[in-house]
């Protein structure tokens, strides 16, 4: 089956400093994929680049195919139909994504007008239905509320309603719960799951929190310093993480039970984009570093059908697999 979206060799550089260094990733129809990594690893830039949302100074190469249509370098009208239409995106801070001087109903109806040509009472009825769908109580009256009258969790629900207005096939959620309290985070994650089931929509969830990804996604890609370093079904990643960075991320999570042990913190910090190590980006922090690590950037190698990792220790003899169609 052809994937809904396929990124191939997607790279981005700002002023000559690479932010993204060759991303290969595909998302199938209806699939939930998690993208996890620390700040600056490129997890957000990946999708901003794919949707043409980066400033002009960003140099983008590679390919983003949506159902056989190339998005990189596509003319503005094409991108405008895709953005918010076939692919919608929501961000971390809902209150800065919403316009503070417009009522939320108007902001939802604007999206309905743009992507589905709805106007007037039709649009208003659909906006109310969307607010109901995202679980805002008393939706009819809330249409006339301003963003500041709603809580952070409710504003994120409004953002999701706006994203759903274009009936997208893919929703990219960039840290959608990071600014929210844990009990509200649980509500939003539940909401995303139920909407995905109802609408058969694919989801890309970007987060720094492996726990959040584990709950909401089927497959996860771990990013480090502008590359994907491991990709696996969620359960497999937790049971048998292959890349030392992934192992480090899991080890850094304080356990919920058992004796309290020292956390396996990864020493050092993320390399700066203008001072990337010559070989594996993680080598300077890796306890298994050896000479070949600095010689060349390791490619993703297959451990099993769906599990790939970019580390020379994983399968020294294995040849890089052909890209696995999702």
């Amino acid at each position, binding site marked *: 089956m052809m994937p809904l979206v396929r990124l191939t060799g997607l790279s981005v550089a700002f002023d000559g400093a690479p932010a993204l260094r060759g991303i290969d990733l595909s998302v199938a129809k209806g699939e939930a994929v998690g993208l996890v990594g620390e700040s600056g690893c490129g997890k957000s830039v990946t999708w901003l680049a794919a949707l043409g949302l980066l400033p002009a100074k960003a140099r983008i190469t590679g390919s983003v195919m949506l159902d056989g249509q190339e998005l990189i370098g596509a003319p503005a009208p094409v991108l405008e139909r895709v953005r918010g239409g076939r692919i919608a995106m929501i961000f971390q801070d809902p209150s800065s994504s919403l316009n503070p001087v417009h009522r939320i109903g108007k902001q939802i109806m604007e999206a309905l007008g743009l992507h589905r040509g709805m106007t007037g009472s039709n649009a208003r009825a659909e906006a109310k239905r969307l607010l109901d769908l995202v679980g805002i109580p008393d939706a009819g009256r809330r249409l006339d509320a301003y963003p500041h009258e709603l809580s952070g969790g409710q504003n994120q629900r409004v953002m999701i309603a706006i994203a759903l207005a274009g009936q997208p096939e893919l929703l990219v959620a960039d840290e959608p719960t990071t600014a929210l*309290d*844990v*009990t509200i985070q649980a509500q939003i994650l539940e909401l995303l799951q139920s909407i995905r089931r109802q609408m058969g929509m694919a989801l890309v969830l970007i987060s720094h929190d492996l*726990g959040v990804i584990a709950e909401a996604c089927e497959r996860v890609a771990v990013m480090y310093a502008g590359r994907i370093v491991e990709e696996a079904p969620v359960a497999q990643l*937790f049971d048998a993480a292959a890349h030392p960075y992934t192992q480090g991320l899991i080890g850094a999570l304080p356990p919920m*039970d058992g004796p309290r042990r020292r*956390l396996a913190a990864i020493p050092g*910090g993320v390399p700066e984009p203008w001072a990337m190590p010559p070989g594996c980006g993680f080598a300077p922090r890796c306890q298994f570093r050896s000479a070949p690590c600095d010689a060349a950037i390791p490619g993703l190698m297959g451990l099993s059908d769906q599990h790939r990792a970019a580390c020379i220790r994983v399968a020294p003899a294995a040849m890089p697999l052909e890209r696995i169609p999702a």
Partner: protein
Amino acid sequence: MKAGGALLEAEGLVRRYAMRRGLLGRAVEVRAVDGVSLKLERGRTLGLVGESGCGKSTTGRLVLGMETPDAGRVSFDGAVMPQPGSAAWRAMRARMQMVFQDPLGALDRRLPIATQVGEPLEIHGIGARSERAARVETLLRAVGLRSDQGARYPHELSGGQRQRAVLARALATDPALLVCDEPISALDVSIQAQVMNLLVDLQEQFGTAMLFVSHDLRAVRQVSHRVAVMYLGRIVEEGEPDGVLHEPAHPYSRALVSAIPHPGRAGQRIVLQGDPPNPADRPSGCAFHPRCPVATSLCARETPALKARPDGRLVACHVAHGEVSAGQGHARQEAA
């Protein structure tokens, strides 16, 4: 230092703010902290956990005297805390320090790290000028910074390194108490682990007591000996971290624990309805009752007191104490 007794004791702390709604609105009273009592032993860590607006940070500021409580009192090392702002209070502040969430905001961007780490020594007149440089170097090493990094400016360090510098500065006066307000929230996961390890090491090395304010139950378990859960300005449950995490007694703690994202979770998550209430519009009785899945009509009328269960766990809940059998939740009852 006196032997025995708690290092820090707070009793019935209350902090109110006046909040005005709109330009001509009537001022309403917001009780950010509404009767909090806590006790912290020497060299131990108390984790204070709750969601935004529950008053955990205000509690941290109150015990340091950075804000004056409207009621209640704080005693430190067996003596009542002097009037905030007085000379006696300032002298005492050398023994209790604060670590904030955002290290970049807590550091002066125009001064090199070593100068800032040495500043408390100057302010409190600790050690001769000649000894201070050596003391700064010891401090930098203790938090895992190299001495050459002391010459750097805050923007030249990473987030984790900056938080280490903030810790070094807080430890300069050899305080008996550190109040850490969300010290790891602004950091990346792998760096969070480094800082949590460091806090545990520093406590072992210097015997510092810590009040660890956080929204992250996992982190609180990792570093604390006791944990107190706050909801809307009150402590609703307090006990050993493992006890509270594995068998939470208060329905709010249960929801909080069940909301922790967790790979391979077994069983159903309790998803709370609605948002945390506005402290300016505090529900009657138990403040949690509108969101509580087991609330009864008693919960809407009477505020439960924080009392010990037979096993020593402190909990403020009518149902947990068996004063009333579990209801169906207040909201649903009303609808029925």
